């Protein structure tokens, strides 16, 4: 069986510890550039039964699937599946797997890092001291404040724990509530209204595109901090920028954007109440290795008829 990796750019799979033994025992086609368009993607995966998808910019549309008759399985490295047309995959009997869980701890830590940095104004404070200033302004203490979690997947649950660790009260809203998990579940409006920090942990889908817009942001406290490490388009970014510029909310910590990389001169880049990182919350050396190994293991498991981490 042939396995294609059409999009290892910049390469993460090839240098990983798990890749060499996999490549030695499988028929692999590997590419260290991004396919320029869907024609090139189709050419790269031609004849492959399994495809390992590294970059979310590489899109598996219905037409890509229709033009790849041998394709039976897509192993996504990561948890987001928005770059794969899942309905089309289901109709065509193409298995889609992902690598959940491996990055949850790192992403939750990243949320904590962003929340603390925004509250303490860490980036502008560091810049100001380097300029020779000594402005000892008041920053915000999080102990005793309320953390609102939207979405209780592995990441949301872990961030809720970290919030409790630093002394925050935690309230949650989730699509599929399970009271047995023991979290304090409240209506979404209450999360928006009561939380001093609102952190988003939903999957991007047709249902969650622009899930938070101007109306939802308007319900948040003027002192609220917004954290997004999930996917950019879950929030109406123009409305978020408006809320940050007008002081409708106090600040934001963002790892994801509607367009990635952010184009130079983007309106967010001039806001000093935002801490932004280039979509790498889940990318630490430890999670990279674990996730890449799992993406390969998902292929092997599928080949051996004992599927794991199946999305559709």
């Amino acid at each position: 069986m042939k396995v294609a990796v059409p999009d290892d750019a910049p390469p993460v799979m090839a240098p990983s510890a798990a890749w060499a033994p996999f490549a030695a025992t499988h028929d692999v086609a590997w590419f260290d550039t991004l396919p320029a368009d869907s024609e090139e993607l189709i050419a790269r995966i031609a004849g492959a039964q399994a495809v390992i998808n590294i970059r979310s910019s590489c899109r598996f549309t219905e037409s890509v699937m229709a033009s790849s008759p041998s394709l039976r399985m897509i192993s996504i490295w990561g948890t987001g599946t928005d770059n794969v047309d899942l309905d089309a995959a289901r109709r065509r009997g193409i298995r889609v797997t992902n690598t959940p869980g491996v990055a949850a701890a790192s992403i939750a830590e990243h949320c904590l890092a962003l929340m603390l940095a925004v509250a303490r104004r860490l980036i502008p404070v560091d810049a100001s001291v380097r300029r020779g200033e000594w402005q000892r302004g008041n920053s915000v203490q999080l102990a005793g404040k309320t953390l609102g979690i939207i979405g209780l997947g592995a990441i949301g649950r872990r961030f809720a724990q970290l919030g409790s660790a630093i002394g925050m009260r935690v309230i949650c809203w989730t699509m599929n509530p399970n009271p047995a998990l023991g979290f304090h579940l409240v209506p979404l409006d209450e999360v928006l209204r009561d939380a001093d920090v609102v952190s988003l942990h939903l999957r991007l889908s047709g249902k969650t595109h622009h899930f938070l817009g101007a109306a939802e942001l308007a319900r948040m406290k003027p002192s609220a901090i917004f954290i997004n490490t999930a996917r950019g388009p879950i929030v109406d970014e123009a409305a978020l920028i408006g809320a940050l510029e007008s002081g409708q909310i106090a600040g934001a910590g963002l790892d994801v954007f509607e367009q990635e990389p952010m184009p130079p001169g983007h309106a967010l880049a001039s806001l000093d109440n935002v801490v932004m990182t280039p979509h790498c919350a889940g990318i630490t050396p430890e999670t990279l290795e674990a996730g890449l190994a799992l993406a390969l293991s998902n292929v092997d498991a599928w080949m051996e008829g004992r599927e794991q981490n199946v999305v559709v």
Partner: protein
Amino acid sequence: MKQPFRIGVSPDYYTEARESLDAVVSATLAGVEGIVVESMGDLPGLVATPESLNRFDAIFALAVHIKADSLAGVDRPAIVARWGVGYDRIDVEALTAHDVALSITPNSVRRPVAEAIFTLILALAKNLPEQDRVARQGGWRGNLSRLGVSIQGTTLGSVGCGNIGQEMFRMSQSMGFGRRIAYDPFVSQDQVRDLGVELVDIDTVFRESDFVTVNTLLNKNTEGLVTERHLRLMKPSAFFVNTARGPIVQHDALVRALRENWIAGAGIDVFPVEPPPKDDPLFSLGNCIVAPHAMAWTARLMLDNGTEAANNVLAVSRGELPGGIVNRDVVDRPGFRAKLERFR
């Protein structure tokens, strides 16, 4: 009729913490009969003078220096109440000799400082300043000099395991750290066993920690405690965080450790002299995060500090012992007892 109980406020409050002072005075002191709150007046170099001290029964001290000379002939004040926990600007022995209690506010400080330590630890681990800069400039992951690292399973270390160190370890319990180790000659293993902290020697803290934090007070024994030798023991992947006091660390050695990459980075909220000179070499280094001794300085902290300090002063105004006493040996001195007696 009883004399009014006069509280002198060090003049830096009026420039550094005016709002907090006003809030504490109106919430905690304004309603108490016989309490007068007044500025100590201008103090050149922020050094208290005997005249400025002797007009008051109690002193609110922010960053004011009280030296042996400041106390020459001083017999009136019964308490110097710090807003905060450091007292390196205050000659404690001289205060005791003049029958003056020194109180600090440990209950208000431990949480915000521990939170500040984690702010720096996580910002360093996740390489936030560089990531923010790269993202703003339209760059992406490939432009980063390094990705973030996870704190899961790493070793959190502390030089000092008192009020703040213990709070840091308490908060760290469910964060996923592996080992938690500390050096503190004044704390026993029994006192910190429940926190999961292992007491070790100072070299072990530096050699084995992924994050070395400083949580000790500044005094003659801790000035210059952290030397080049200690920093050279650290792993090249490890980070150093100082939110305690600048002079505890040999600054030149820290600069070299960062410049020559003996260590991966540092979060520095405190400096040998504050404000530091504008050409402090740390300011041109990319692998450190610097802050103006204000990482823990939140609106809430100042209110809590002030309320705790005000309650310490109010206890004295009723002739009772205050909380947070540093110089416990003052308590049994007849001169101090006589002062308290006056306020009963």
